[in-house]
């Protein structure tokens, strides 16, 4: 498969792993945060930790859109979808995220019209084909997915499709990184920067991380070789005492970003004054809402949204895991009450969530098995 196999080539991977071992100072402990959940997934899926020396620690960052969404927003979205003649559409990874009264899939099993879509334009198509229904798209994601939502809204307006709206939960990556860096219990040496987000925003918005926070950052792709190469680049910077933004993912990320995508976003969205992030709390100017000129397609303006706030279960330590303070397995609920099948927190739901990735691909490699079919304690034998 082109553009994939080249970046999984065993000999190159082995050579790059050797280079990492050569560059890493054995007297030093390195903590690199991969911001993006896609990287977390790749690291576990390809077993990359097996290739790294033990003094390089990868810390999983907040770049998993499903994971940072507070439960209240899910409840809000589902409450609208419960109204008669509403069709709820969302990406597949939203479908098992628990709200207070169940996940979208559980609502579907109870008879609500819930559809999985692969692109916001599919939701618009459903609206055109089902004129008797109101089709609501539960939009999530960073700048990666926001442009396609924006383009879909522009098309809905141009075509005058009135039975369509977007429940906008788009967030922006830079304030999240800033929140991580401001967190007092956080020690990170350098960042593996998000690849997909950067295809849209480019590399410039990260400059402050190098200049003001004194940390190297390398924007990286998602294949094994991409991630290993970005670690080589970070080590070279640290060894040379440099602090720069570098772009490893040049085949997809232009330095200036994607102007057309940014323009579409600016046309449709504006910054919210503040937005709640799961685990990180309220962060100012960290999320997008739909501009008044597109108000007719804004679920929050068309329907009355309850504005539910739900605190996470006390025992769940999603926030600490999300910030990289705790490893997934250090959470008290991990693998017990909280499993991919019965997730308590969203980090266990999305394949990009660090808990799900760790649970699916890693933890049984090392930890002794309690049971192959872990049941929530409440169901325990």
């Amino acid at each position: 498969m082109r553009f994939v196999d080249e970046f999984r080539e065993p000999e190159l991977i082995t050579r790059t792993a050797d280079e990492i071992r050569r560059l890493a100072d054995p007297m030093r402990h390195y903590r690199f945060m991969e911001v993006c959940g896609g990287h977390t997934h790749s690291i576990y899926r390809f077993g990359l930790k097996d290739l790294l020396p033990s003094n390089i620690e990868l810390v999983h960052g907040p770049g998993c859109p499903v994971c940072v969404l507070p439960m209240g927003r899910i409840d809000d979205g589902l409450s609208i979808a419960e109204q008669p003649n509403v069709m709820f559409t969302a990406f597949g990874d939203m479908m098992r995220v628990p709200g207070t009264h169940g996940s979208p899939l559980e609502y579907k099993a109870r008879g609500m019209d819930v559809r999985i879509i692969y692109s916001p334009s599919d939701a618009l198509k459903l609206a055109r084909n089902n004129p008797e229904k109101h089709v609501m798209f539960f939009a999530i994601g960073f700048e990666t997915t926001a442009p396609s939502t924006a383009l879909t809204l522009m098309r809905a307006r141009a075509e005058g499709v009135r039975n369509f709206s977007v429940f906008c939960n788009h967030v922006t990556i830079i304030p999240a990184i800033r929140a991580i860096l401001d967190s007092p219990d956080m020690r990170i040496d350098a960042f593996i920067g998000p690849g997909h987000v950067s295809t849209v925003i480019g590399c410039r918005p990260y400059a402050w991380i190098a200049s003001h926070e004194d940390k190297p950052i390398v924007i990286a792709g998602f294949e094994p070789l991409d991630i290993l190469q970005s670690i080589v680049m970070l080590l070279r910077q640290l060894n040379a005492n440099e602090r720069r933004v570098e772009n490893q993912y040049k085949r997809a990320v232009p330095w200036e970003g994607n102007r057309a995508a940014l323009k579409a976003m600016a046309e449709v969205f504006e910054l919210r004054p503040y937005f709640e992030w799961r685990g990180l709390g309220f962060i100012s100017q960290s999320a997008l809402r739909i501009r008044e000129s597109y108000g007719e397609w804004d679920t929050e303006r068309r329907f009355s949204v309850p504005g539910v706030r739900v605190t996470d279960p006390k025992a769940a330590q999603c926030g600490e895991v999300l910030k990289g303070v705790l490893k997934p397995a250090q959470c008290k609920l991990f693998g017990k009450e909280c499993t991919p099948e019965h997730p308590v927190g969203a980090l266990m739901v999305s394949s990009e969530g660090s808990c799900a990735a760790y649970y699916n691909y890693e933890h049984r490699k090392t930890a002794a098995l309690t049971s192959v079919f872990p049941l929530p304690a409440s169901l325990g034998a």
Partner: protein
Amino acid sequence: MTTAAPKIRFRDPQVEMAHGAGGKASRRLIDGLFAPILFGSAPAPLGDAAHININGTCVAMTTDSFVVRPLRFPGGSIGELAVNGTVNDLAVSGARAQALVVSYVLEAGLPTEILEAEVRSMAAAAATAGVVIAGGDTKVVEHGKADQMYITTSGIGRLIPGLSISPAAVRRGDKILLSGPIGDHGITILLARGELDLEADLRSDTRSVLPLVEALADAVGAGVHWMRDPTRGGVATSLNELAHDCGLGIMLSEDRIPIRDEVRGACELLGLDPLHIANEGQFLAVVAAEQAEAALDALRETPGGEEAALIGEVGEQPAGAVLVTTLYGGSRIVDMLVGDPLPRIC
């Protein structure tokens, strides 16, 4: 003496699609609700068919329902699946299908043309598989209460001499064989629904695997320790069940698992693991190490088995789990399917 009431451990408040997906939720439903009530206790490891002793003659018996949408897809249709699925469940339990009975649940309004096409498909598949359709039943439900048609087939089979299939027979060092490329069926169905703007030149792999199973039995007989057709939940789920049932670890070499580029590509795009995707014409066999090569040769020499591969082996660790290793030395655990990425594929 009183018998303790069976303990019902299944506490999910309602049935979800995942309970029918063949993965973890299905297993919990079976182990937690069906088995304690129907079998009175925790069942022995669940095979693809029950072996029943009738006056000293052992026969294999199984049943399977088909609810696939759409009814027809490249490479097959619900009628073919209904025959091949049951023939294959018998085959991988070490039995040659002798007769099937079939039940139809039809939705009022189903065009006769569609029904006739499926009945003909079943007849053709039965002839190819060498099995008789000996009887059946038909029910019709109101329009809107079923999706066109559902088919259930039940089959009875005669045990293939010399084969003895059981997770308990699996030993450390045994080799794991796979009859051909994985994921064709699941991805074909996904694309056939036309909900994704994706096209690929792919066909369902639905077929009877009996000729391949018989070739294996002829070549190595009791050297075959375990077989399974990795349908819903895919290879990962079947091998996790084996690991669970035999308490040993399964180690797979990722680069040895045959997967077509089209399937890999679709999985990459959609974020699916090919090891979780359903197959309808492949099977897994665990074979004694010293006979693995002969077994592989026998499969490859049988028409339809040319792409068979040795994909891994059984070890002590990771006990009860499946580990996939890459060429460059990375490794990952592959769990059973959780949830249901592709509902109603068979």
